[in-house]
């Protein structure tokens, strides 16, 4: 079912806003994670991890889910479809783990924020977790960069399913 032009513009705007917002939230999260790992001032470190907890729950998680939802609406409401073109399918395959992994790891992030709120963290405290937060945020940012590049370049390539559907629709329109 193809969307009307007005609805298409609205859905596209919503998808762009949520996707770019998600990218920005992850970029901010990465900055905080690096500062939390590297900064010498314990007050700054504490503030960073508290802010990361808030950013994770109130920006990254809702924006990522909204981006996925609006993306699915855009796919299903246009001729691009969900699995007809490889660039759409690859984007979905890439972004699903980018959404699931932060959701699964929000507990350790919240634990980190809670620990920071209650005590002054020394550089050795939870060091492995602090390093991994930087690594995961960096990886998420890279995934979102690639997803954005796929959206703007839309590289060619029909999936076998899309190839069949396209031919069926052309045949049906000729009858």
């Amino acid at each position, binding site marked *: 079912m193809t969307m009307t032009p007005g609805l298409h513009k609205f859905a596209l705007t919503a998808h762009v806003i949520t996707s770019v917002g998600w990218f920005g939230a992850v970029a901010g999260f990465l900055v905080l994670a690096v500062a939390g790992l590297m900064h010498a001032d314990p007050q700054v470190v504490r503030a960073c991890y508290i802010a990361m907890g808030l950013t994770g729950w109130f920006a990254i998680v809702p924006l990522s889910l909204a981006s996925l939802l609006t993306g699915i609406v855009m796919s299903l409401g246009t001729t691009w479809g969900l699995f007809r073109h490889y660039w759409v399918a690859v984007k979905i395959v890439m972004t699903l783990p980018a959404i699931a992994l932060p959701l699964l790891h929000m507990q350790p992030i919240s634990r980190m924020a809670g620990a920071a709120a209650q005590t002054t963290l020394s550089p050795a405290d939870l060091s492995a977790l602090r390093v991994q937060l930087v690594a995961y945020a960096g990886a998420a940012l890279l995934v979102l960069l690639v997803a954005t590049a796929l959206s703007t370049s839309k590289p*060619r390539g029909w999936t076998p399913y899309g190839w069949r559907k396209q031919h069926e629709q052309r045949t049906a329109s000729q009858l």
Partner: protein
Amino acid sequence: MPELPPYPGTPRWVYVFGLIAVAVVVVFLLRHLTGGGMGNHVHG
């Protein structure tokens, strides 16, 4: 119904992405299976 034209094949860039994805998943699983997870947390 006219015969379906031959499928042009999967583009090379999809294979490249697939290889990269497999490599990332393998590295990720190895880190988690060797105890390199996030502070020894338990999922769920």
